C-alpha cells in the first residue's frame, strides 16, 4: 500500500488538489467559506511590490509621450533644447500637480454629496485574469472598508468591494459579468439591471418591452439594491434591441467610467454591507 502511494504520489496529490479546490469553490460560491487564511497574507506580502510595480507601470505608460516630446526638441540648438527640456519638465510637473489638485477637489466636492463615512482610496493593481474585471485598492478594513461597499468616482459608478483585508481591498468592476446594479433610465424611469458581459460589453437587462428606452438615454442608480446611493450616473444607452418575442428588451450601455483610467475612487457604505 505504502509502495503504491509512493509510486503514484504525484497523481494522487493532483487528484486531491483538484478535489480540495472544488470543495473551496463550492463552499465559497455558497457563502460558507468564512475564513481565508492565505488570501489576506498574500495580499499583505504583495501590496508593497504591487505599489512599486504599479508606479513603474504608470511611468512606462507616460514614456511614449515623453519620448515623442524629446524627439521634437532634438532639431533645436543645444542650449535652447536644454532650456526647453527644463521648462517642459517643469510644465509637466505643474500640469500633473494641477490635474491632481483638480481631481482631488472634484473628489472632495463629490464626497460631500455622498452619505457620510465615504473613504478615498487609490488603485494599486488591476485584474490578473481575462475572466474577471477587478481592481485592487490601497485601503482595507483598517480604514473602514467592508465587503459590499459601493465604489464610485465623480464620473459615476465603478463597482463594489468583494473582499477586504486589513490594508487592501478587491473591487469587482461593473464591467464584470458577475456584477450588477439596479438602474433607472433617467428620462422614462424604466428599471433594469446593468451588468457586464465578456462578449457584448455592459448591458441593461430585464427592461420590460413596454418601457420606452432610446439611444443616448442616461442611466442612473435607483438606490433600490441597498448598495449604491440613488442618482449616481452609470452610463448612457448606445443600442436598444427589442426582439419580436420575449418579455424584455436588451439595452447596450456605454459606462460613464473607464476602469483603465481610474486612479482614485470613493468607497461608499451602503445599507447591505457585511
Amino acid at each position, binding site marked *: 500500500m505504502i509502495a503504491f502511494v509512493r509510486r503514484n504520489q*504525484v*497523481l494522487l496529490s*493532483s487528484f486531491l488538489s483538484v478535489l480540495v479546490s472544488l*470543495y473551496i469553490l463550492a463552499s465559497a460560491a455558497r457563502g460558507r467559506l468564512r475564513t481565508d487564511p492565505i488570501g489576506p497574507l498574500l495580499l499583505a506580502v504583495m501590496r508593497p511590490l*504591487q505599489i512599486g510595480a504599479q508606479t513603474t507601470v504608470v511611468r512606462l505608460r507616460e514614456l511614449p509621450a515623453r519620448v515623442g516630446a524629446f524627439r521634437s526638441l532634438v532639431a533645436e540648438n543645444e542650449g535652447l533644447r536644454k532650456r526647453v527640456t527644463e521648462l517642459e519638465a517643469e510644465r509637466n510637473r505643474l500640469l500633473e500637480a494641477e490635474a491632481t489638485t483638480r481631481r482631488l477637489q472634484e473628489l472632495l466636492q463629490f464626497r460631500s454629496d455622498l452619505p457620510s463615512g465615504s473613504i478615498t482610496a487609490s488603485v494599486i493593481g488591476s*485584474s490578473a*485574469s481575462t475572466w474577471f474585471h477587478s481592481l485592487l485598492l490601497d485601503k482595507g478594513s483598517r480604514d473602514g472598508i467592508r465587503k459590499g461597499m459601493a465604489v464610485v468616482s465623480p464620473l459615476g459608478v465603478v463597482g463594489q468591494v468583494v473582499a477586504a483585508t486589513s490594508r487592501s481591498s*478587491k473591487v469587482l468592476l461593473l464591467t464584470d459579468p458577475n456584477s450588477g446594479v439596479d438602474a433607472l433610465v433617467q428620462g422614462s424611469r424604466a428599471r433594469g439591471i446593468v451588468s457586464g*458581459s465578456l*462578449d457584448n460589453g455592459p448591458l441593461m437587462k430585464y427592461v420590460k418591452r413596454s418601457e420606452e428606452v432610446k439611444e443616448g438615454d442616461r442611466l442612473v442608480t435607483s438606490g433600490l439594491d441597498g448598495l449604491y446611493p440613488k442618482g449616481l450616473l452609470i452610463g448612457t444607452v448606445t443600442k436598444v434591441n427589442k426582439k419580436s418575442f420575449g418579455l424584455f428588451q436588451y439595452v447596450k450601455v456605454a459606462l460613464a467610467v473607464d476602469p483603465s483610467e481610474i486612479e482614485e475612487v470613493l468607497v461608499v457604505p451602503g445599507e447591505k454591507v457585511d
Partner: protein
Amino acid sequence: MKLSLLFLLFGFLLVLLQTTFLHLFPLDPVVPDLILVLCVYWGLNHPTVGAVLGSFILGYSVDVFSSPVLGLNAFAMSLVFLAVYLSSRCIWIHNSLLSAGVVFFASWIKGVALIIAWNLFLTGDGPWMGFLKYVFLEALIAAILAPALFSLLRRGQNYLETARMPV
C-alpha cells in the same frame, strides 16, 4: 523541494506581472496567462508533489487577486497540471514548438474548466460564444509566449541542478 520553492517564488513574480506590467500590452481584456505556462512546464518537466502544491497555490493567488469566488483558478490550474502530467506519460516534448502546442491545449482545458465551474457555481447563463473567443485568444497568446518561458525555466532548472550536484 528547494527547486519547487524557487519555482513558486518565480510564480508569485508572474502573478505580480499579470496584475501590473502585462496590462501595458494592448491586448485588453485578455491578460497573458504566464502562470498557466509555468503549470504546464511543471507537469512536463518537474512533476513533483511540490509542483502540484505550486499549481494549486498560484491558481489560488489569481483567485485572491481577481476572482469574485475563491477556488475557480485553483481548480482550473490543478486540473491543467493533472491533465499535462497524465499526458506527459505518453508524449515526450523535445522542441519548443511542441511545448507551444501543449500550452495551447492546456489553455483550452483551463478555459473549459472555468466555463463549467462558472456555469455551475456562478451565473447560469454564461455567454458561450464570447467565452470561446477569449479562450482562443488566451490560448494563442500563452502558446506564443510558451517557448521563451520554457527556455528560461529549463535554463534555470539546469543551472540549479548543476549547482547542487557534488563535484
